[in-house]
């Protein structure tokens, strides 16, 4: 059964609410990562459905968020792109910049932004711009 973006976001929520024994920054970073991937996968699924690509077609992360964030005709698409860009940058910080603090507030915001994105996405599904799939790196 294909991985559902909502399932990925549920993990982020569960981590946030249940706070496993290993708490603090490792937890916040994990939450940020899951929140970003839930948002990214949901957006890719919507684009693949709109343009009838195969499920699991690879859409480059930067191309997805930047194209949507700069899509002038549709403010809600720009909103989704901006949330995705913010989450993408925060995920880069969480995964690669160990010296940079990731706060509980930022991880809470990541979950909230991903939730808003998943709620808004269906209403703009037919307005999403075309992004061509690429070969996986």
């Amino acid at each position: 059964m294909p991985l559902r973006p909502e399932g990925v976001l549920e993990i982020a929520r569960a981590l946030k609410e249940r706070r496993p024994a290993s708490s603090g920054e490792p937890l916040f970073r994990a939450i940020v990562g899951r929140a970003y991937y839930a948002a990214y996968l949901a957006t890719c699924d919507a684009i693949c459905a709109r343009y009838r690509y195969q499920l699991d077609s690879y859409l480059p992360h930067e191309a997805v968020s930047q194209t949507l964030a700069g899509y002038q005709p549709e403010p809600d698409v720009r909103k989704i792109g901006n949330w995705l860009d913010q989450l993408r940058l925060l995920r880069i910080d969480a995964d690669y910049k160990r010296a940079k603090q990731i706060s509980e507030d930022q991880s809470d915001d990541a979950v909230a932004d991903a939730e808003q994105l998943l709620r808004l996405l269906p209403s703009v599904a037919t307005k999403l711009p075309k992004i061509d799939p690429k070969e996986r790196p």
Partner: protein
Amino acid sequence: MSQSDLLVEASSAATTALLIPSGGPAASAVVPLRLPGELYVVRARKGQRETVICPLDLSAASVSGNAVAPAWSSPALVISAYSLGSVYGVAETLLHELFGADASLKADIETDPDTGIPMLVFRMGISRELRGLRNEFLDRYIRETQIPPGAPVPVLSWTYDRAASA
């Protein structure tokens, strides 16, 4: 690449169009061009993007048919080269309107470690108590800004003072 491969022609707007055809050397090359102002094309190796170095306005230049884009050496340069000054200005105005005079905005350049692609980042520092206003900021920012075609879209980044920690 020989000097004879260089084409310089006048456009209908009387602006010199600089065209460097493809088919240059496979190895790395530094090619001085016969134009005033110390103009060079630098190619690290075949398949790498060429760099054009000169003091001239290159907004109408192309290398092998590809438009010349500014190097990402500073956020101010990227903002200026891509005409994003008004976008930055709107972000700053909205930031202070919603989050107060103490809110801070700084442009920065980040690089995605997976792809090497640079990002223009607007780093915004606000009071933790006001972070619920982020959505209102985003709605107005989207309504009041236009990203010029071809320009990188600034990535918004939020940090909070007096942030809660574990």
